[in-house]
């Protein structure tokens, strides 16, 4: 864990009159697993959209590995080594699982948009695709259409696609939302295994997942980070308990 992989400074985002992100400062160390928690409407997803380039901030800066990426296009940010998954499963439903992952892996090829060579002749592409399939344990489903997978299988596929670019920082937006307890355990193990050596920023409503996975936790309430610390520190933090944990204990249902 050396150096800062992600730095947010004075980040703000307004939609019209409404300010959703109201001055967020956040530093993420390389290789760190960080959870971002907060009540519904705190701006967690918006923050993800800002970091990944889906939305441009109204003010403030975003630095990735020392590089200013504020307001850059998503594809540029992705190529720098920052990959994200989505809260709503975001795959290519009409294509096979194999093809889904292959399209993700293809991006790492020297000429990913070549129109003069056959895709099945590209060196290493099939191997890399199969390796990823195996890592998320979807080999048996390789020929199935992504749209026909079960929900947790789709999440696994989503994670595989996120990993395909071998990113240094992964943003996962509620990867366990809507999962059964079994599926949650399975996906948790998968995430733990796959993020070794990478920095992770995860938004999750399942507090068991958050406290067992994260090295540190940041609490976002009404567009501001009110606390950052180890799971123990957060558990003890008075302001967090009042603003969030007590309330969430009564409402474990994710958004």
């Amino acid at each position: 864990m050396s150096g800062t992989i992600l730095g947010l400074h004075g980040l703000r985002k307004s939609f019209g009159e409404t300010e959703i992100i109201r001055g967020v400062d956040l530093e993420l160390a390389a290789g760190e697993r960080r959870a971002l928690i907060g009540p519904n409407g705190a701006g967690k997803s918006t923050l993800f959209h800002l970091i990944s380039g889906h939305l441009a901030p109204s003010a403030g800066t975003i630095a990735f590995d020392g590089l200013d990426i504020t307001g850059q296009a998503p594809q540029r940010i992705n190529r720098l080594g920052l990959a994200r998954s989505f809260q709503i499963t975001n795959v290519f439903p009409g294509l096979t699982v194999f093809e889904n992952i292959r399209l993700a892996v293809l991006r790492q090829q020297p000429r990913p948009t070549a129109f003069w060579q056959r895709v099945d002749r590209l060196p290493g592409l099939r191997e890399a695709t199969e390796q990823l399939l195996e890592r998320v344990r979807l080999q048996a489903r390789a020929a199935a259409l992504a749209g026909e997978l079960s929900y947790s299988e789709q999440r696994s596929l989503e994670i595989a696609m996120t990993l395909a670019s071998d990113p240094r920082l992964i943003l996962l937006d509620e990867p366990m939302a809507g999962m059964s307890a079994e599926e949650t355990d399975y996906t948790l193990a998968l995430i733990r295994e796959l993020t070794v050596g990478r920095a992770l920023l995860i938004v999750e409503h399942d507090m068991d997942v958050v406290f067992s996975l994260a090295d540190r936790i940041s609490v976002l309430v009404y567009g501001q980070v009110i606390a950052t610390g180890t799971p123990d520190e957060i558990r003890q933090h008075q302001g967090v308990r009042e603003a969030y944990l007590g309330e969430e204990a009564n409402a474990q249902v994710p958004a």
Partner: protein
Amino acid sequence: MMRTSTFLLLGASALLAAMPALLSAGLLNAAVQMLIAALFASAYGLLAGRAGMLSFGHAAYFGVGAFATVHAMNALNGAGLLPTPLLPLVGAGAGLAFGVVAGWFATQRSGTAFAMITLAIAELLHALAPQLKSLFGGESGISAMRMPAWGLSFGSTTQVYYLTLAWVLASLALLHFHTRTPAGRLTLGLRENAHRLRFLGYDVHRLGVSAFAISGLFSGIAGALQVLANEAANYVVFDAHVSASVVLNSYIGGVGVFLGPALGAALMSFFGYAVSDATQAWLLYQGVLFVIVMMFMPEGLVGLGATARHRVRVLGPARALPLLAAGMLAVLLLAGGTVFLVELLQRLCSQDYRALAATAGAWPPVTMFGRSWAAASAATWAWPAGLLLTGGALMAFARTRLLAREAQR
């Protein structure tokens, strides 16, 4: 499977190559038009079927290819680096260049906005072309001569046919190759989920422009081939009905399968050729066919074949084939009834007939299908009614039996 398709492909190519020996000159001309329509629809299928971008103005790229070629024919006179057989390269280049420019604008948006931009670009050309006489030749268009080259005169329909066939087959091969390339695979991703593609690190706009431009390139070749066949280009190639036909043809054939649009276009232009002399209602039939295909077989006619094969495999030939044959017969009866009705009504509603009826004070007989029919007689009207009723009943019977047999499994 691979060997069957290779066999089929070779067989089809051999059949196409044998056409000049089998067909009269008139039919061979129609075959040239079918080939051109097939290539144009395949180019369109790349964009609409594979990239998921519904262009409503593809006549623009066809027409730009056509006019570039007619100018090249007149400027070069078949001499220099571009003898007659290589002229479609000019169409390809023009289609590509215009495709890049138009595509750059159009692919900024998707869905309805995209369709409207493509429509606007084609309409712009259609409105502008008659004004720019030097470029588009005004109302009368521009004509040119096919010059002899490579020891061939290109004076006979047979030679034009082979020239067209060679270009169409080569283009289809390239278009098929494109489906196997990284660019081709990404085109599918564009259709399925462009948003996800962006977050995988791809420049989605560039991918969209490239799919658009490649489609423009092959549309341009199709336009060039038409100019070579007709030795003329007229601004009516920019007409909205050219854009509409390629959409209808492609979807009637089925954009989900590589050869679907080509087969749809070949079929429809053949019918257009065969039927347009016999009836004034050809456009109506084309429209009705399109609506029926979209309602009952959104996969297109190619999908119909696949469904039939699937039924035969699931139920076994002995149980499926008679019902499928009954279904086919029902379709023929229904089609017959519809055609009878449409033709009869079209004759009865024509101005000539109404003038005749007004002077005679009664309904005079009409001539149809080579014989005369009494317009007011019940026997005449019983024909379409009988055909439609029998066809409908047979269809309902075949359908319920087929579903029942499937449910039994």
